[in-house]
C-alpha cells in the first residue's frame, strides 16, 4: 500500500465506501482538495508551536526575564492552554480537509461538506442530471501543482456543484464525461 500524508486523489478505490452507496454503485473517483491547500495551517501551526520557546530564549538572552517573574504554575497553565488551542486549531483544520470529499461513482456525483464541527451536508446528484461540466486552473500554485476547480451544472434542484481545488481537474472532467456517455449509451441500449 502506498502511504501518503495527505492523500487526495483516488481512482477506483475498492476499500472506500460511503453512506448512501447503492449495491451496484462503484466509486470511480474519490477526491479531496489538493494537499497544498494545507500548507498555510501547517506552517502556522509549526510557527505557533515554536513561538513560546523562541520567546523564552529571547526573554532570557535579552535579560528582560519577564517569564521568570510569572509564578511557575501560572506559566505552565498558560502554556498548556496555548498549546491546547493550537492542537484544536490544527486538528479542526485537518478534519475539515479530510472529510470534505468529492465522489464520482458510475451513477452519481456526491459532494460531502463538513462545514464545522457541528454541521455536515451531503449532496448527491445523478450523472443523468449533469448539463455542463467545466474546469479551470487558476494561479501559480494551481499551475505548478496541477490542481483546480471543476464546475458542474445540473438540472437537479441543486443547480451547481463545485469540486474546489481538486488535483488533476482535467482527468476528473474527462472521467465524468466518459461515465455520462457510458450511462447514456447503456440507457439507449436498454430501449432496444
Amino acid at each position, binding site marked *: 500500500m502506498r502511504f501518503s500524508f495527505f492523500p487526495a486523489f483516488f481512482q477506483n478505490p475498492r476499500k472506500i465506501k*460511503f453512506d448512501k452507496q447503492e449495491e451496484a454503485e462503484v466509486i470511480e473517483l474519490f477526491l479531496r482538495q489538493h494537499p497544498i491547500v494545507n500548507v498555510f495551517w501547517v506552517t502556522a501551526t509549526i510557527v505557533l508551536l515554536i513561538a513560546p520557546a523562541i520567546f523564552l530564549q529571547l526573554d532570557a538572552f535579552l535579560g528582560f526575564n519577564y517569564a521568570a517573574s510569572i509564578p511557575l504554575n501560572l506559566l505552565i497553565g498558560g502554556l*498548556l*492552554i496555548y498549546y491546547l488551542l493550537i492542537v484544536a486549531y490544527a486538528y479542526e483544520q485537518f*478534519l475539515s480537509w479530510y472529510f470534505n470529499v468529492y465522489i464520482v461513482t458510475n451513477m452519481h456525483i456526491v459532494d*460531502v461538506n463538513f462545514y464545522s*464541527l*457541528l454541521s455536515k451536508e*451531503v449532496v448527491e446528484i445523478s450523472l443523468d442530471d449533469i448539463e455542463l461540466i467545466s474546469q479551470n486552473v487558476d494561479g501559480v500554485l494551481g499551475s505548478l501543482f496541477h490542481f483546480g476547480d471543476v464546475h458542474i451544472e445540473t438540472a437537479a434542484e441543486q443547480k451547481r456543484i463545485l469540486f474546489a481545488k481538486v488535483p488533476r481537474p482535467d482527468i476528473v472532467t474527462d472521467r465524468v464525461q466518459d461515465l455520462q456517455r457510458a450511462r447514456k449509451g447503456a440507457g439507449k441500449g436498454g430501449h432496444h
Partner: protein
Amino acid sequence: MEVIPVVSPAVTVIDNPIFLNLVSGVFEIGFLIFGIVYFIFTLIVLRQVNLMTQTIRTEGGGFLKALAILYAGLALGVIVLFIGLF
C-alpha cells in the same frame, strides 16, 4: 524628624498575599473552566469523527476514531493537571 519610607502603591498591592491569593484563585478557576470547556469540545469532535467515519468509510477511519478518543483522554488529563497545579 521621622523619615517615612516611600513605597510605590503598585508594589504594595502586588506583594499583598491576599491579592496574590485572589489572582491565583481567579486563574485556577479560569484554567479549570477552560479545561472543562475544552473537554466538551473534544467530545463534540469525537462525536463528529464518528458521524463522518460512518458517512465515509475509509481505511484511515479507525485511526481517526482512536485519535479522537485519545484527544478526549488528553483533555481529561489536562483537567486533572490543572487541579494539581494549584
